[in-house]
């Protein structure tokens, strides 16, 4: 991408950069272009904010804050049988 096309990126290009930004992997022109785009595009700004939050939610939801799922009794029976037959 030339500098000009990077600076005038579309929403499709901008949203692609969300993960790169999270991981600190943006190049110089990408960073500049993205900053410019997010200043003028409210929809992408919203996408970035919501995507950040969703990642945070996912982390919190699946790292202990929540009640655990339980395996069904039937599946535990099957596990016991499988393990028992292996142990004999």
């Amino acid at each position, binding site marked *: 991408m030339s500098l000009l096309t990077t600076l005038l990126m*579309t929403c499709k290009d901008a949203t692609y950069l969300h993960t790169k930004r999270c991981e600190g992997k943006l190049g110089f022109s990408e960073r500049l272009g993205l900053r410019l785009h997010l200043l003028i595009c409210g929809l992408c700004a919203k996408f970035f904010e919501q995507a950040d939050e969703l990642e945070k939610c996912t982390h919190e939801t699946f790292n202990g804050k929540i009640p655990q799922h339980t395996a069904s009794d039937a599946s535990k029976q099957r*596990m016991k049988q499988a393990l028992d037959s292996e142990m004999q």
Partner: protein
Amino acid sequence: MSADKPEQKLEPEKWIDKYADALYSYAFARVNRQDVAEDLVQDTFVSAWKARESFLFNASEKTWLISILKRKIIDYYRKKSTQNELNIFDKDTKDDFMDHFFAASGKYEGHWQNSTAPLEWGKDFETSVETDEFQDILTGCIGKLPPKWAAAFTMKNIDDMDSEEICKELQITPSNYWVIMHRAKLQLRECMEKNWFGK
């Protein structure tokens, strides 16, 4: 076998009662399918028994079992990747997925479609995260992602793996990874908006 046998410290007859729920929760959060999660946990117990001599006493039984389960989940994702998921790396294929979100041509090419552009959300995150319903909807939305996208997304956001590690495990290039994450986030955001935040 030496005098202090590994079996003395491992208690396989208690594994299922002690760990089946924890392992199942771990697997379910990542594969989002009950039958698959149950099978993976069962395989984990059997494999653990077979590999009992590799158990190191400085690790806990549970941590050791989880590490075996982790490998099984990654193998599952690898096997599950379909041709459909690989097409997205081919620039010449018509891309209905992206066209759903962004105009394919015209004056506004590459800009949000009116029908799928992000909306203002009526619910906030802090209170959402606490509820069971939110958890179910999030699990459901992650479950609707193609397996490799779900894998990349959960490895990043549940397991805190870095992208190099994820690429290695999923056997994809860094650029495949950016593409996958882009799509995963577009789809997940839309799904959560429709089923939770936009309601």
